[in-house]
């Protein structure tokens, strides 16, 4: 019996469509025969003779045109900046903060324009970890929809005009309110304080309210009750031996996920002494949940019971009921066992914004003694200071006409993200002076009197204090592209302390530096800027001893609980106009360009929803009603979704009234252009479900109660899930459990592939695969370099950072929803998500083909295990693609690389057909110029083109492309070593994906250097090669995924099988 891995229900159930399409890697809409036999063909206006004439003319014209050398201009600098060498990158250390994501970053610039962002591994809080949103934010800099200067009532005006009228209005306003996202910049905070003081001195009232669209105020509330300080503590996942997460996606979007991802990665190495045990109780299959060792499905209303069960299990007192169903109880018992053994080295986190649940979480952590080890209350997190109660009051005031005279919006978009945003937007016109600092004329800004656009994060100076003990600096990497102004300068000007100095203003720089010098009298600003950060001791929180809180208002149970979650690419929607992020497949659902209702397929089946889909067949629609608000969305089958719950992602439906927020934020038509509704308004992508957010006990609540009703019609989803199937060859992913890994040998969990051959005595003998070869060995094994990669499936969490980094580094085009739906996405690196169910259903092994039922398999698949597997070109030393290319466009290098010469390629696609890993991508269209991609592909925009990496060719129509192992980086690394007359140091070469990986799951290097990390990693007992049995000798190794769990099934499969195998062998001899 083999474990069955499947990518989608279509594969598991083998729907006829699936069977049909898996044979056809490049689905085309119409066959050639059908096209030629069509009657319409005769009615075409171009006759055959005309066609040949045109053909002849165009060939002649093209030939003539090719004879003339076009004139290319070369424009050198007039005065070259000191640190810029044309053709060489310049790196800047900086800090990224957008209100929800935070990371210490390095920005690569070429000839003064930023083209790539990666994590700063040497300095900073996040130690090199980034997320897809941060890497993709570079594209936002070059968005042509950004405002190019200040606006007054929809008209472009000068800064002088705006400053004049705003200072006048502010002076006359009785009350001024600033609604901002969480401010963690000390310098900006000082400007706000200055303004507050100036206004108060005039007898005016000034309010500063901080508001996060996705709020974590319940954690602050709970800590205020328990410890007397409304703080969010620092969590240290790297110190935790047991991690219990109650609905917190701490690897995706929860709090400072970038830092937690890094810490989590450190504890997930099965080769080290201790590997953490991760329990997840959640309703929606989150990124964290997919990586858990044990995952239980629980509705939000059951979270309290889970916490209570654990508290009681640890001999704590809890008034909350602790009734659990048997499946959850089994896992809760396991969690208890683990918690009891790890005690203080445990960490319990809860993702709900319900104060009661957070109080229970705190109680559990207190019982365990986690405070002081895994939780640090004194070095608290300064992010997410949303004051939900005040926000709700402000919104109500504005709507009822009691709003302030002047209202400013900084980094927030309440018209989009407030539950009553629509009414709020309508009431905004009653505010005398409304000012937005948004970079786009977005939902809120477009309704404001003034828009004073702030710089893009890469254009401005700023300082940040993400935690109490960390001070970070953000430096500009490019001169502002447009006539925008730093918010620091704007506030300073309005307070009358500075004057407007335009694009090259140094006001923000001076103020940040001044602030720095005050904090670090002995510091060197240039040095700190180079490092991007400094350690600091902030104000000390006065904490009281743990005091039990008043647990009330716990989530109520209902027949349909709706979870509003954030996708790791889109988040709260602030980058909804970013085509890279829109096209990034969701780590779990693998869907792109949409939000949808996620529901357990078991439940879907009983309610009559379609549970399978493909490029031609869509999903059923349903309407969800919450609090009188209705949305209609497709229903997506998501195994692992708790029964009686559904999940919907926030962050979609941006620009619902056609606000100018960027081309890629809207739906496009099949042959290009935006889709419009009956009124001619652009159609947004997905639907905004922030309207569902409820106010519970002064907190914005994201787990709500609703009703679901089926709708007619179907909706096509563009998912990468059902493409690139594994064709039932299940030697691709390997997993085991920690007990098997530590107690048994390699044979049990990672047996070598063997084949039989006759030995000298004429007996059959099992020998390793490698002894059979059709071809001579490539001379890459020992001489020169041999570039290799290992991917540790235990560390890989499937976050997608590598995918976006690859897209950014290698100029991978964006193709839009319609093309993704057709299976023509261009990502060089994909992350395969395999669900693992326990039932055998492999083709050819079924006992009774006709009566075999998948029902059993489906029940097992209700809460499946998940494996994330990054898949890119394996650079096989016996590459099947190379042998079939008729023009030798893809060849092997003596460094083990499978090279692709685009200009040689004639597009036969034989190579892609012959690739066992299905990693080759064909350019069906001229993505940089064809009108279909104008809205989605940034390379079609004069400004968007600036983001392209000049060291990588932009491919044209009709050629194949694929992962090159970032050959441009290999060449650059070699050149540096050659110029410095030294060997290449291990770790010096990194591909974009390995650079971006927050958990260091991807290791690359020179395999011929026996001291290299990649060599030792590939010799690890867990190392195996995907599809090793076909003998293509790839240069990529995977390492077996190890789950820290007891699993009888795996044990029976892996442990029981091994001796039997031996016996069989002996018997044969």
């Amino acid at each position, binding site marked *: 019996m083999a474990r069955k891995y499947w990518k989608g229900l279509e594969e598991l159930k083998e729907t006829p469509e699936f069977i049909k399409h898996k044979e056809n890697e490049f689905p085309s809409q119409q066959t050639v025969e059908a096209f030629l036999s069509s009657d319409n063909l005769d009615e075409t206006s171009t006759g055959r003779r005309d066609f040949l004439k045109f053909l002849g003319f165009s060939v002649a014209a093209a030939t003539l045109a090719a004879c003339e050398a076009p004139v290319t*201009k*070369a*424009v*050198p600098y007039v*005065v070259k900046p000191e640190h810029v060498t044309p053709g060489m990158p310049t790196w800047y250390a900086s800090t990224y903060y957008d209100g929800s994501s935070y990371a210490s970053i390095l920005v690569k610039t070429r000839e003064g324009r930023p083209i790539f962002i990666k994590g700063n591994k040497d300095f900073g809080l996040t130690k090199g970890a980034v997320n897809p949103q941060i890497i993709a934010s570079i594209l936002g800099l070059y968005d042509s929809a950004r405002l190019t200067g200040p606006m007054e009532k929809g008209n472009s005006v000068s800064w002088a005009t705006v400053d004049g009228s705003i200072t006048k209005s502010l002076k006359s306003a009785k009350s001024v309110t600033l609604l901002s996202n969480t401010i963690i910049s000390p310098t900006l905070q000082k400007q706000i304080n200055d303004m507050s003081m100036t206004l108060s001195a005039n007898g005016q009232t000034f309010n500063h309210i901080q508001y996060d669209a996705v709020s974590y105020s319940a954690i602050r509330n709970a800590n205020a009750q328990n410890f007397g300080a409304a703080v969010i503590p620092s969590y240290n996942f790297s110190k935790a031996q047991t991690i219990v997460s109650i609905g917190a996606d701490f690897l995706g979007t929860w709090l400072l996920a970038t830092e937690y991802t890094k810490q989590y990665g450190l504890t997930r190495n099965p080769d080290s002494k201790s590997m953490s045990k991760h329990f997840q109780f959640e309703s929606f299959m989150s990124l964290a949940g997919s990586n858990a060792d044990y995952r239980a499905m629980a509705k939000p209303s059951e979270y309290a019971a889970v916490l209570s069960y654990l508290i009681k299990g640890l001999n704590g007192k809890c008034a909350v009921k602790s009734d659990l169903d048997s499946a959850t109880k089994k896992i809760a018992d396991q969690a208890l066992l683990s918690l009891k053994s790890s005690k203080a080295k445990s960490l319990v986190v809860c993702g709900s914004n319900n104060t009661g649940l957070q109080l229970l979480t705190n109680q559990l952590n207190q019982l365990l003694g986690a405070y002081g080890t895994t939780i640090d209350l004194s070095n608290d997190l300064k992010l997410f200071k949303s004051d939900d109660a005040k926000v709700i009051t402000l919104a109500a005031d504005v709507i009822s006409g009691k709003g302030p005279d002047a209202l400013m919006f900084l980094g927030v978009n309440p018209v989009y993200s407030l539950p009553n945003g629509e009414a709020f937007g309508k009431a905004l016109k009653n505010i005398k002076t409304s000012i937005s600092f948004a970079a786009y004329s977005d939902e809120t800004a477009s309704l404001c009197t003034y828009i004073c656009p702030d710089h893009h994060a890469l254009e401005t100076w700023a300082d940040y204090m993400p935690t109490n003990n960390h001070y970070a600096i953000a430096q500009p990497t490019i001169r502002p592209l447009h006539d925008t102004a730093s918010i620091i300068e704007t506030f300073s000007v309005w307070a009358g302390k500075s004057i407007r100095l335009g694009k090259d203003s140094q006001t923000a720089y001076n103020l940040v530096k001044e602030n720095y010098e005050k904090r670090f009298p002995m510091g060197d600003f240039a040095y700190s800027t180079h490092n991007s950060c400094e350690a600091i001791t902030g104000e000390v929180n006065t904490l009281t001893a743990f005091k039990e809180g008043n647990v009330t208002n716990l989530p109520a149970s209902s027949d349909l609980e709706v979870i509003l979650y954030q996708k790791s690419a889109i988040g709260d929607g602030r980058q909804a106009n970013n085509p890279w992020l829109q096209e990034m497949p969701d780590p779990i659902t693998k869907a792109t360009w949409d939000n949808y209702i996620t529901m357990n397929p078991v439940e879907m089946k009983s309610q009559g929803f379609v549970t399978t889909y493909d490029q031609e067949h869509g999903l059923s629609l349903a309407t969800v009603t919450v609090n009188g608000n209705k949305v209609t969305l497709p229903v997506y089958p998501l195994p692992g979704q708790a029964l009686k719950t559904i999940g919907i992602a926030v962050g979609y439906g941006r620009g619902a009234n056609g606000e100018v927020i960027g081309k890629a934020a809207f739906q496009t038509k099949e042959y290009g252009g935006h889709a419009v509704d009956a009124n001619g308004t652009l159609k947004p992508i997905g639907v905004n479900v922030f309207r569902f957010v409820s106010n519970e006990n002064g907190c914005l609540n994201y787990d709500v109660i609703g009703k679901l009703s089926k709708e007619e019609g179907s909706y096509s989803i563009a998912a990468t899930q059902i493409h690139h199937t594994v064709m039932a060859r299940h030697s691709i992913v390997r997993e085991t459990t920690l007990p098997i890994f530590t107690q048994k040998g390699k044979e049990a969990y990672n047996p070598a592939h063997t084949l039989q051959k006759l030995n000298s005595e004429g007996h059959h003998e099992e020998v390793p695969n490698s002894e059979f070869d059709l071809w001579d060995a490539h001379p890459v094994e020992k001489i020169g370099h041999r570039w290799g990669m290992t991917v540790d499936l235990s560390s890989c969490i499937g976050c997608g950072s590598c995918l976006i980094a690859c897209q950014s580094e290698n100029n991978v085009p964006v193709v839009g929803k319609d093309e993704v739906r057709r299976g023509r996405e261009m990502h060089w690196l994909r992350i395969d998500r395999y669900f693992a169910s326990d039932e055998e259903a492999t083709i050819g092994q079924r006992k009774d083909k006709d009566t075999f039922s998948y029902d059993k398999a489906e029940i097992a698949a209700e809460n499946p295990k998940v494996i994330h597997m990054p898949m890119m070109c394996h650079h096989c030393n016996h590459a099947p693609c190379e042998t079939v290319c008729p023009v030798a466009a893809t060849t092997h290098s003596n460094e083990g690389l499978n090279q692709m010469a*685009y200009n040689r390629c004639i597009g036969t696609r034989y190579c892609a057909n012959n690739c066992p890993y299905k990693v080759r991508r064909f350019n069906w269209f001229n993505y940089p110029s064809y009108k279909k991609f104008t809205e989605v592909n940034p390379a079609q925009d004069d400004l968007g083109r600036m983001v392209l990496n000049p060291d990588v060719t932009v491919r044209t129509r009709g050629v194949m492309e694929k992962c090159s192992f970032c050959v441009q980086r290999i060449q650059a690394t070699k050149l540096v070593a050659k*110029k410095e007359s030294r060997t290449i140091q291990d770790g010096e070469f990194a591909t974009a994906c390995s650079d971006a990986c927050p958990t260091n799951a991807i290791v690359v290097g020179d395999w*011929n250097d026996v001291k290299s990390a990649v060599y030792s990693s590939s010799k690890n007992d867990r190392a195996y090669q995907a599809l090793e049995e076909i003998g293509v000798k790839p240069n990529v190794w995977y390492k077996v995924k190890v789950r820290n769990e007891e699993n009888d099934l795996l044990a029976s499969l892996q442990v029981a099988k091994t001796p039997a195998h031996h016996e069989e062998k002996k018997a044969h001899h």
Partner: protein
Amino acid sequence: MKISNIQKIKRMPSKFIFVFSLLVFLSPSISFADGGGNFKAKCSSCHQPHKNGTGPKLFQARQKWSTGGAKEGSIYQWVNNWQTAAANDPYAAGVSKWSATAMNAFPELSKVQIDEILDWVDAQPDPATAGPANGAPVVDVDPASSEEGGNTWLWIILSTMFIIIILSVGGVRRQLKISTGESTPNDNLTYTEEFKAWAWKYRLPVGLGTLVIFLSLIVTLFQGLGRINVVENYQPSQPIAFPHDKHAGVNGIDCKYCHNSVTKSKSAGIPTVNVCMNCHKQINGEGKPYAAEVKKIYSAAGYDPTGSGKYTGNTKPILWNKVHVLPDHVYFNHSQHVVVGGIDCKQCHGDMTKMSEAVKVQPVEELNKIEGNIKLSKPTLTMGWCIECHGAKEVSLGDGKNGYYDEIHRRLRDNDKSLYKKYLKDGKVTVSELGGWECAKCHY
């Protein structure tokens, strides 16, 4: 850009621009090899023998110093470190006020070397008095190519005449036959029919001839196709008539002084205007034919040469026309070739010290004439040309000169002796044997 700027591909490369007097001018340098070399390497970016530049002219500088009342040996101290000299010698202090631009220190130059430099400088004839040297008309005639061109026309005329002669002779014969009654009655055929009959009669030679003509047409077609996008002799006009021969030749400025990113980056770099201004702040060319060209630099740099000489800040970049244009799908790195490969600029760009007009892509025949160049046959800037060189150029391995290649050598020697021997069959390990012919070395 219009056709006028889609530049005329000059058919007449100036192969021999040997201005006689220039030879005379250069010949004495042989006897002062060290002095001349050091002058060019260290001094020539600011100093000229007979003309003030960024620094004053150096002709008979020693005499000037001693007659001016400088202390004995003060001039050598000056060269080593002018500030020391200025502190010790009032004359030197006076010299330091000659210009606001401070002179570099050359502590590495010994007294002997300085003397050599100054000896060499003193031996240079003043071009202003040397007569025809500067004013000599440039002989821009290429006998070889004009002959070649003439040949083609000659052949065309000759063959046309030949065909006409054959046809007329044939016609005359035919008329003769008819008039003499030699032709039979049923011979009253049209020309076509007659030709067919004739071709059939002599089918073997006619068939072979047709085959030969057909094959040669095919060959010509493919050769013609092979010339598409061959940019040899491409010579676009430039916004400023920049004479490389004056800068790199006469003044001996090192290529890397202006193209300074050639050792660091993939692009050699077109000098930025501030680099031009290092020298041209002084050399304004007043009264010279090239004054107008220098003014263009001033306008680009936003420099006002009149009065006190100030930068207005009103700069405008110079739009040069790129001469050596590689397609976008080719990655070429200058520093790889110059620093690692040790290739001289001349190998690909030709002898720039003799290029008096706008730069052009030198045809491969020209490049082959330069001493020290690897001889190639394929047209310049084609892939064949690159490949040929990669197949010929030796990589020095295991000689301790480059730690990177020493390691590659060690792996090759220790791990695959037979392959190493195969490589060494021709006595060297070439770039191609180390992978220099692989696609992804230049295409990615």
